[in-house]
């Protein structure tokens, strides 16, 4: 049996007496689309920070495929194929769109150490960057400076940066957050168009997206994994409804979906 693309065992993290993650055990088989949902403060972003190495766990281990990556630095994990995007855009404000993605491609191809050859000679890298941008409809905007882009396109660029690393596992932190309805079409197309070679885990509050893109859902509450299953199973799980019903006013969509799928 092949190892899952990404798995964690007994992951735990606390800040003083605040437990942000406890006994997290997750297995993501290759190519599957996972959604990670849960109320605010459940520890979803913390989990991503633990997986990517931005936070060091107090206990537990993380495996990427066969390899134990628990002790690896964040950039090492990226080089092995574990990449994330940010809930709030973390881009390079004064670089152009093309420069940003080219930067990532050059780093991936290990040419970023060379300082004697000019960028103009690296046509492979530039072309690859351009292709990625084109696939995400950012081609025409490639020479615009990042800070001048509309928010929706910045969100797309956020994904483009991640894709340029040729990830095996992609962690999307609320990819649609803050994107107005008019601009989200391209974004959804981008997410739908993600290659089946990539295992995707995305945090989302928008239940439309969850039901559209995820084949499995993980629910986190208070730093622990509550349950896991297909979207339909989760929607009809009474424990999940209990967790969410307290926030019925905010998660109207979930309410509607839950009631729509209830037996």
């Amino acid at each position: 049996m092949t190892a899952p693309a990404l798995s964690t065992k007994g992951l735990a993290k606390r800040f003083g007496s605040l437990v942000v993650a406890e006994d997290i055990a997750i297995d993501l088989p290759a190519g599957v689309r996972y959604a990670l949902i849960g109320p605010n403060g459940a520890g979803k972003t913390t989990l991503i920070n633990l997986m990517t190495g931005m936070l060091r766990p107090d206990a537990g281990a993380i495996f990427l495929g066969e390899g134990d990556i628990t002790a690896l630095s964040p950039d090492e994990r990226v080089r092995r194929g574990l990449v994330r995007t940010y809930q709030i855009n973390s881009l390079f404000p004064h670089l152009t769109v093309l420069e940003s993605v080219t930067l990532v491609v050059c780093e991936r191809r290990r040419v970023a150490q060379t300082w004697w050859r000019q960028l103009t000679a690296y046509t492979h890298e530039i072309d690859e960057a351009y292709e990625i941008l084109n696939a995400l409809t950012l081609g025409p905007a490639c020479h615009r400076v990042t800070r001048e882009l509309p928010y929706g396109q910045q969100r797309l660029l956020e994904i483009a940066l991640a894709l340029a690393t040729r990830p095996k596992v992609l962690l999307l932190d609320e990819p649609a957050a803050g994107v107005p309805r008019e601009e989200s079409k391209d974004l959804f197309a981008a997410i739908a168009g993600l290659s089946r070679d990539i295992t995707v885990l995305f945090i989302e509050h928008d239940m439309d997206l969850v039901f559209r893109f995820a084949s499995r859902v993980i629910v986190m509450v208070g730093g622990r994994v509550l349950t896991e299953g297909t979207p339909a199973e989760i929607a009809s799980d009474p424990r999940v409804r209990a967790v969410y019903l307290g926030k019925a006013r905010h998660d109207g969509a979930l309410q509607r979906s839950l009631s729509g799928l209830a037996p």
Partner: protein
Amino acid sequence: MALTQSLDAPSLYFQSRTRWRPVEIAFWLATLLPFALFPDYLTLASQIAITALFALSLDLILGYAGIVSLGHAAFFGVGAYAAGLLSKYGWGEPLTGLIAAAVAAGIVGYATSFVICRFRHLALIMLTLGFGLMLEELANSAGWLTGGFDGLQGIATWKLLGYFEFDLYGYVAYAYSLAVLFVLFVFARRLIHSPFGLSLRGIRENYVRMPAIGAPSRAHIRTIYTISAAMAGIAGALLAQTTETLSLDSLGFERSAELLVILVLGGAGRLYGGLIGAVIYMVARDRFSGIEPQYWYFWIGVLLVTVVMFLPNGILGGLAKLAARWSRP
């Protein structure tokens, strides 16, 4: 502005950035003017060239990698003393002196870069300040080596390339300094337009994101810091060789702070900012050399406050903004 979607377009953008612009060529031609127009000021011109090189070295780490250093004069001083001591103890050949200075300063830079690369913000500023002050104290205490307050005596620079004698008027000194400046400038320019240069800008723009895209930012910072240190060392060596004098204030905090002012005045992150800043600052200082030092520092203080409040990207930044406004219909 319409962009074609052919795959030629992307690389063209990078090509257009790498090409030498007419205004740049004009600038470098203008640096030859002092030979013809200001022959009495060639010593000043050579000081300006040296300061410009020093500022360029700081721009590499500050303007391009975002490292605020309050102790860059340390490398200038190491290079200066390396060349000075070499000359004092018998070997005054200028070009090899430069190499020795680059190696000495580069080694110190490389060693400290391991500490520097791990920090940002206040801790980083403090560390650069701390290293600079430590070196100053060391140099002070090692008076037997550095000459202490009296300065290093006995520097005698041999003929350049075995042929050009350093004359009193400063012809050879300026030609020498200018040539070294130009060569290293071209080097820096190539570096900025390389993939490494792009990574440096990434570090400056968003330090936190770099590891998240798989970039070994610390290794990059160590590399550029070492290169910058070596370059500052070469500038210091030039000073020692062309003036044949050297004192402790070449590596003092005042020197580091002054350099920061020069670079910011011209505009950091634009390669030419340090050069422009050096020209303006040194000419102004020469004009007002009669004033008491504290009054000079008063106006520098006012200048700093003004630049930060009204011209945050320095003179070149301000010009760029104006140019952008004019070109918009």
